């Protein structure tokens, strides 16, 4: 039986508390990993590992946090993500909410796509598919 979203959120909260060293009450569904919770690049690997252990799922490299966007000139033009890049992002991270990012697709705003809710959505999808 798939876990409900509240159960998934609580477990994700526990993962992020341990991985990022923040307090429980800082982990809200809308909190961004980098901006609000202070995640650094090395933390993303730790988060993936802890999610795999907590939920018994396998997270292939780049599936939760895609790493092939910024280096591709087709997807990035100076400081903006191109239309092709936006489509690629949506395909790569369907679990993210693009409503704000689409209005101003700046490269500097890409990290804001990764919120606690993004992770909860991703994990839910993996559990349903399992």
């Amino acid at each position, binding site marked *: 039986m798939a876990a409900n979203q509240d159960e998934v959120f609580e477990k994700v909260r526990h993962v992020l508390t341990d991985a990022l060293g923040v307090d429980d009450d800082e982990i809200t569904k809308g909190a961004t990993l980098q901006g609000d919770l202070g995640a650094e690049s*090395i933390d993303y*690997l730790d988060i993936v*590992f802890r999610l795999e252990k907590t939920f018994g799922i396998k997270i292939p490299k780049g599936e939760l946090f895609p790493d092939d966007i910024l280096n591709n000139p087709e997807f990035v033009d100076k400081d903006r993500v191109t239309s092709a890049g936006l489509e690629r992002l949506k395909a790569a991270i369907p679990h993210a909410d693009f409503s704000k990012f689409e209005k101003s697709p700046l490269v500097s705003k890409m990290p804001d796509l990764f919120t606690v809710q993004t992770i909860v959505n991703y994990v839910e999808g993996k559990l349903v598919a399992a």
Partner: protein
Amino acid sequence: MRWIWIDSFVEFVPRVRASAEKCVTLAEEAMQDQGFGPPVFPPTLMIEGMAQTAGILVGESRGFSENVILAKIRRASFEGYAGPGDRLRYDAVVDSLDDQAAMTSGIVLRNGEPIGRVDLMFSHVNQAARVLDLPDHNFVFTEQFMSLYRSFCKSGSNEGKPVHGG
């Protein structure tokens, strides 16, 4: 001062686990001039001892061909201290090992009793990846560490089984 905080390996199972020991002595520089009460072995150096134990375990998995650097202390908690005359043991276990990183978990024991837990994350730094502008040579697995590893391999203490690379 040489930066080596383990004295010898007592177990080494490639890609699985390793245990190293360290004897705490009053003669060490880290035990001097602490200025308060009886001297204690700094927990930060116990973390380093675990990092060296686990780091060699991780490095061996790729034949010591890459620099393995400590990327993150995922957890470090201690319920006790060590002092002069104590024998520390670092039991490290590989939790995950792939091209990107290695995760290890470990228990710190003092005279056979658990006093701490240290979980670490290591990154492999490929010699070809120059983004960090690192030296060309292998600056992690120095002769000091390699001699510890080789001494253990030669001793045949690993449950009687050979350890490749020894």
